[in-house]
């Protein structure tokens, strides 16, 4: 970077010197000298430009090395870390989907057990009430006693089954640890790639300066904005509680809709 600044400084001071010399020569009618000055100016600019393009090329090469892409290899695509990250993220999607399905399987297995116990308990309670009100005879009581006995057996069996389902539901959450690690690694890679890209853009801007290229930032921004089509959907919003353009929950949605006459 220091080297860049010095070469930029050199360009500027040469420009100033030569500009004065050029005006001088022209005022004195010395056209041959003026042409010579212009030639020298061109040379300084070209030299700077070549230097910057050279640096940019080197930097690009370094970036490629940093991304660990073997550009000469046959399997360049598979070798890249980005590709690896894609695989890793797909793994996260698979793991989370599997865990969600496993959890729902277990919930769907548990629900009928709970419902069955609750139904039978309700039925027994009614019969027990009749017994307490002395509304059943000896045969009825023997029948009720049998039912209570079988119910107690069922509670014992089903509750141990339920407890094992609950345990499995707990275990199905172990994906969080694995996916968390994967996502952290990918996040680190994205940050690294971004900082490398920023470096490249900085290098490229030095080339722009020597070449006298100017970009219409406003037009570029407008173009990027235009490509954002809201109906495509954006997915979950981050920091919703700190933003005005985003609702932070169902209460906000309901308020907004009722303000629209819903």
């Amino acid at each position, binding site marked *: 970077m220091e080297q860049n600044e010095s070469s930029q400084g050199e360009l500027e001071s040469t420009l100033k010197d030569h500009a004065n010399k050029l005006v001088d020569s022209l005022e004195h009618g010395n056209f041959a000298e003026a042409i010579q000055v212009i030639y020298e100016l061109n040379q300084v600019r070209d030299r700077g430009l070549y230097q910057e393009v050279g640096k940019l090329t080197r930097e690009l090469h370094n970036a490629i090395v940093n991304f660990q892409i073997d550009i000469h290899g046959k399997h360049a695509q598979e070798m890249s870390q980005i590709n690896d990250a894609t695989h890793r993220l797909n793994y996260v999607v698979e793991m989370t989907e599997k865990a969600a399905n496993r959890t729902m399987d277990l919930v769907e297995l548990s629900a009928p057990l709970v419902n069955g116990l609750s139904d039978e308990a309700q039925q027994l309670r009614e019969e027990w009430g009749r017994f307490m009100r002395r509304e059943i005879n000896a045969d009825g009581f023997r029948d009720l006693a049998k039912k209570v006995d079988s119910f107690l057996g069922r509670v014992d069996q089903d509750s141990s089954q339920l407890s094992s389902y609950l345990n499995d539901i707990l275990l199905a959450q172990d994906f969080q640890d694995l996916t968390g690690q994967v996502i952290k690694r990918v996040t680190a890679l994205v940050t690294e790639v971004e900082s490398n890209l920023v470096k490249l853009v900085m290098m490229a801007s030095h080339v722009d300066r020597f070449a006298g290229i100017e970009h219409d930032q406003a037009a570029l921004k407008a173009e990027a904005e235009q490509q954002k089509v809201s109906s495509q959907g*954006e997915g979950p919003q981050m920091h919703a509680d700190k933003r005005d353009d985003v609702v932070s929950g169902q209460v906000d949605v309901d308020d907004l809709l009722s303000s629209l006459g819903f």
Partner: protein
Amino acid sequence: MKILIVDDFSTMRRIIKNLLRDLGFTNTSEADDGTTALPMLQSGSFDFLVTDWNMPGMTGIDLLRAVRADERLKNLPVLMVTAEAKRDQIIEAAQAGVNGYVVKPFTAQVLKEKIDKIFERVNG
């Protein structure tokens, strides 16, 4: 009551299906985006549509617009269940004629509330 659930993630469809079953709605079908949902709606006599917004192929908002533009479907009650949380988007959905809007993550209670409200209005 026949309900169509549209979401590109099978787990989300399963969650909604289970919640609806708890609420007593057992006749449900599923589609993974608007492109597959629209012909199902046009050929099957659905009474209610629950859709996500962000899906590949045809999005939920486009599906909603297609439903409202269809002479036979235009009165179908539509509940949007989505992660899209921008005010502009909710206004867009309201203008497109949505009957209810639930943001993810949501609770069984919220889903029940919105569905009750929609049918209260449709039947009232």
